[in-house]
């Protein structure tokens, strides 16, 4: 009996040891993400398909947080109110009750984060292009020209909101400094020139498709966009002549269709976005309300007021603010949003000419805009100062709710001219850099 028991014990233990051994013998495999491609997988020896996927990622992310960026700066510049369930839209952004802007709230974190996602995708694309032999050098130049131009475009958006930007972000573990406006803009302009060189060596066709760049989706077409951005950057730098040069190589056309230009496009497809600046007409609780001053200050007969705004069935009031008009800028939630259209370039042309002291040419450009809005020609003084005022006013109406007004007033030191709606409100014209940048 005892022997049997002993054997049982030995047998059982042996079984257990065997069992344990079997389990440990099959060691766990190296883990891969079952749900998505890995970053490392595209950084080396990427196929053309993988590169093109990144191209889409760059363009797609240009739309990240675009609505918050636009309504935030639009609110701060008293272009509009955003009436929804978040009181920070009517409190923080308007400086209510002595509050200061917060560097850890959606309005300051989202526009920054959104722009840098697109920039990150572009930097991944640049790195992948360096480390692959699957495309030709000419094709590579096309990818580079595209990526760098978009990075520059996005950095300008950062500067408009924050007045500063971090330029060198290619290595997430070793970020460059956050540069002040002038230094950052210099770097942006240099990057645009670099991109132009790449585009000029990129052959006749891109190796990748683009979505919102219809008419600009070849190296030469895209170079026109690159120059249009360079012109914008130049006037922001106060360099009128450079702007004029750049414009001459862009799709700027004083006599042409003002709506021409690349667009952020939207669809209901899976993985795509809808236009966050579209609001259901006459809905409540989620409205872009036109600031009353935009209606009140408009010149009689300005068709832009009618086309961009719509009177509400009921006036609306929230948080001590009220308005009768709502946005009508976009017809549906898949309407495109312009990145940079000819209308803006005409205004940039006017501004560049003021800076370059060609006031007649500036007046001409302003009249193109005025006429397009069914307004009579400009009759004011032909001085740089008066034309600047007129140019900024035309920008106000041509580019309403397109993330321009706050920056326009800031760069001309006019923010203090904005109306105050409620006692205790303040005017802010720069968003604080997010807390997470750990300055």
């Amino acid at each position, binding site marked *: 009996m005892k022997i049997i028991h002993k054997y049982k014990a030995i047998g059982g233990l042996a079984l257990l040891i065997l069992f344990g051994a079997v389990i440990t013998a099959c060691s766990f495999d190296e883990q891969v993400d079952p749900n998505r491609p890995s970053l490392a997988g595209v950084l080396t020896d990427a196929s053309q398909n993988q590169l093109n996927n990144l191209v889409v990622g760059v363009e797609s992310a240009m739309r990240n947080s675009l609505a918050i960026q636009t309504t935030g700066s639009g609110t701060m510049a008293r272009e509009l109110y955003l009436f929804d369930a978040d009181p920070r839209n009517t409190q923080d952004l308007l400086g209510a009750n002595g509050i200061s802007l*917060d560097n850890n709230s959606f309005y300051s974190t989202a526009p920054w984060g959104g722009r840098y996602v697109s920039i990150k995708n572009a930097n991944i694309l640049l790195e992948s292009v360096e480390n692959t032999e699957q495309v030709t050098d000419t094709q590579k130049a096309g990818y580079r020209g595209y990526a760098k131009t978009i990075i520059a475009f996005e950095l300008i958006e950062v500067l408009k909101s924050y007045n500063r930007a971090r330029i060198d972000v290619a290595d997430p573990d070793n970020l460059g400094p956050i540069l002040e406006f002038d230094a950052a803009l210099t770097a942006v302009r240099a990057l645009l020139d670099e991109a132009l060189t790449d585009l000029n060596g990129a052959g006749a066709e891109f190796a990748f498709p683009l979505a919102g760049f219809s008419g600009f989706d070849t190296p030469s077409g895209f170079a026109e966009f690159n120059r249009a951005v360079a012109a914008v950057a130049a006037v922001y730098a106060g360099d009128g002549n450079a702007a004029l040069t750049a414009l001459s190589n862009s799709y700027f056309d004083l006599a042409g269709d003002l709506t021409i230009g690349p667009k952020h496009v939207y669809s209901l497809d899976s993985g795509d976005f809808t236009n966050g600046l579209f609001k259901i007409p006459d809905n409540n609780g989620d409205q872009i309300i036109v600031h009353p001053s935009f209606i009140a200050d408009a010149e009689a007969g300005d068709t832009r007021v009618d086309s961009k705004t719509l009177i509400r069935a009921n006036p609306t009031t929230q948080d001590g603010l009220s308005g009768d008009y709502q946005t009508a800028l976009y017809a549906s939630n898949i309407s495109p949003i312009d990145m940079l259209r000819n209308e803006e370039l005409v205004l940039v042309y006017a501004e560049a000419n003021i800076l370059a002291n060609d006031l007649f040419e500036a007046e001409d450009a302003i009249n193109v805009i005025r006429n397009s809005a069914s307004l009579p020609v400009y009759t004011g003084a032909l001085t740089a100062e008066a034309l600047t005022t007129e140019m900024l006013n035309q920008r106000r109406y041509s580019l309403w709710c397109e993330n321009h007004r706050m920056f326009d007033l800031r760069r001309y030191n006019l923010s203090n001219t904005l109306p105050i709606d409620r006692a205790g409100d303040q005017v802010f014209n720069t968003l604080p850099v997010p807390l997470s940048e*750990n300055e």
Partner: protein
Amino acid sequence: MKQKSLGKTFLWLFLALPILGFSQGTVSGNITDSNYGDPLAGVNVVVKGTSQGAISDFDGNYSISVANFPATLVFSSLGYETKEVTVEGPTTLNVSLGESATGLDEVVVTGLGTSIKRSNLANAVATVSNEELVGTTAQTTLDGALYGKLTGVNITSSSGAPGGGFALRLRGISSINGNNQPLYIVDGVYVNNAEIPSGLRFASGANRGNEENSANRIADLDPNDIQNIEVLKGASAAAIYGTRANAGVVIITTKRGSQGKTEVKFSQDTGFNTIINKLGLRPWTAQSVEDTFGAAEVDLYNQAIASGGLFDYEDIIYGETGLITDTRISASGGDEKTKFYVGASYRDEEGIIKNTGFNRFSLRANVDHTISNTFSFSASSNYVRSSSSRSFTGNENEGGLSYGYTLAFTRPWINLFPDDTGAYPDNPNYSGNPIFVRDQAVNEDKNNRFIQGIKLTTNLLNTGDDAVKLIFNGGADFLANETFVYVPETHQAQRGNQNGFIGVGKNNFTNFNYQGIAVWNRNAMGGDLALTSQAGISYLEQQADLIFNQSTQLIPGQTNLSQGSAQAITQTTSTVKEFGYFAQVEGNYQDQLIGTVGYRFDKSTLNGDPNKFYGFPKASLAVNLHNFDFWSDGVFQRLKIRAAYGETGSSGAFGSAFTGLNQVSVGGIGGSSISALKGDPDIEPETSSEFEVGFDAGLFNKVNLEVSYYNRVVSDLLLSRVLPTSTGFGSETTNLADLKNEGLEVGITVNPVQNENFFWSSNINWWFNRSEVTRLDVPAFPQPGAGFGLGLGTFYIEEGKPVTQLAGNVNGVPTQIGNVEPDFQMGFFNNFTIAKQFDVSFLLQWKKGGDNLNLSRLLTDLGGTTPDLDTPEGIARNASPIAAVRFVEPAGYLRLREAAVYYRLPSSALAFFGDAVTGIKLGVSGRNIFTITDYSSYDPETSTNGGAGLSSGIEVTPFPSTKQFYFHLNVNF
């Protein structure tokens, strides 16, 4: 020598067997409480050294067949001293048992294959019996049922919706982004407690799945099935569970059969629930309407007053009385080889919002079978079908769905009821009409779940001094969850935008685990030293496949996914595998010194290196001073001093090691965009090391005292931190901090009066926890997903500060503005038995201190509907800036958590039913009966972020909590 003694044993057995074999018979009798003679039901009677057992009925009667006389019968019942009586032959044996308030003889699991008597335990392991869990009042979920019943436990409710939504925190926060919920083990099966979002955020605009206020799936377990729950609160007790145990372990044992007459039990609970309290309407006057909304609004107000008064939408939406029924039937019994427990239950619970509810159908079959002296097995099977309808609450962004949001903005003079044609008017004050949402929009889930546990024990050797057995146990938990969200195209926020929303989730989870353990019991030093050694392996695998299908741009009136022109699918799969070795030696010297040492090695595919083993040691010592010769009974009848140390771990969440690219598309072209999460390919488990000391004492023959102090250090805390977003990433989860928790837990049990006609027992649990972030490798940061930024207030990880601090921007500087950790908590339970027939009990819970961030009030202030806006405080608050500090409120409370009165029919009354009925018990009870608090919203226990690591204490328009009242009927056959 050993062989010789073995030989003697078997020789003796061989000789004795034939004689013993013929001396069999039945012992029966009655078991009573020694204090007041009341019959004791449910007492376990076991023939010592065998698996023969029986259980006493409602009248305390038992009957057990004994194979071999003489035999020792062991009578045990939770809460009573265990008694052993030797019987020489078939007889009638009446037994009385003394109360043991501490449950000293109850057995507590301390190893994976072994257990120990509570009186010898070196840790403060909390045990909750079935009676404590559900004996006072009916409970929907087991986690919700634990409120106030254990020291060191903090429970947060993320939703008052039927079907729960709870988070359990044991001894403070031990893990933030790792496994931050305790490991639930039911009859050896590691069960799934996932909180599965329904995807309603894609219609409501909520930021994350955890803002959807889903239930956590431990809700599928019927609390009434549970025999007892052991809670291993800290690393010192849970170390043997290794890398899964950082947030503690909850070991659940379900009811099992015992030998004897088959007992059939029927129970019916019928009750109702109502909102816990109403916040009320702002006392509107024409003047205050004009001051708040302008002159034009006054006309609308006056019209409403003229045509029947204001609409109290809080009452209209949350004011329903929900009916609750819970029906259970079970049978248990068995013979000496096979024992069974089978039961079925159905619970149906309506919510306080129309069209909300929860139901659960549960079937259980637990079987124990002894094949031979060598082999035995147990099987535990549980099938559950549960479903719930939770409607729309919690955070959102302009979805017009969440009631709290809608009510915050809806002015009470607006009529939102459908007109004669059935058309619902638009809400002029917000983007949704709550009546429409309540009547037409749907948020439901269905769960089919099967949990199967199995245990096979092989007794290899039993010589008297040495016993070796092999235990194999394991099981599987399969859960098929389906979610369905429907928002009609006619909903105000849908029209012209999404044009209707259907979200269908199909989510499958399969968990399986097994353990192989060898246990060797040895009596050394002539029986003075009992050694229990064990060694084994453990394997765990968790598979999840979550598929969410969304359809928008719907064909009017259709609820089929294919009836929409814009469709999207997301799939998330994961497989986690873990493997570990463990070994433990426990020595007991004459019940005087009890020491344990153990070690566990674990590896996990969640770690950066999936094949690297991490070690988790443990050691403990208990000294029973009263068992030493020098001890003389004075004030202290009993005094045990104990100390324990242990380590546990927790791996990062699935995916923490990966940096990936997400699918995007623009203009019909698909592509890849960087995922916000930056993976850490070198991620390691966080490790918690806990040292616990304490003593247990028995005083004055009436008082039992249990005091424990613990100090737990979590090293290499896994933290999801916000990265500079200029990197293109949003966050990464890495090991970058240390955290310390320390606290004190005191349990006092007193039996002040023990008369035949009046018996009073009282139990006080008192505890507190303090935490501090002791190391942080990166600058302080707001915890992602645990708040709404420093502007409105957030959890903020900062060295030298409690991990539970709330911070906000004060003059541009992140500043602590509160702390959700209470100063202390206390549970006060009393049970009275009056005239043998009546049981009266109540549980009071007191939470002292602790702050909440009440962001519901942010919304009602903005909407002008907060009830106090006409008071001086309200006016002052409304004039102050929207800053986090404005919304911090004290969240302490005193609550009558449970109370009940039961009446047991005397035997004389039962005679009416003849033999058919052996016991009837009737009762009434209530839950959350009253609450005293300064907190201005529904319930200080709240969380807008579900059960996530740092989630408690931030409120955004939750499903209001409820109070519940029941009538109970229990019949035993």
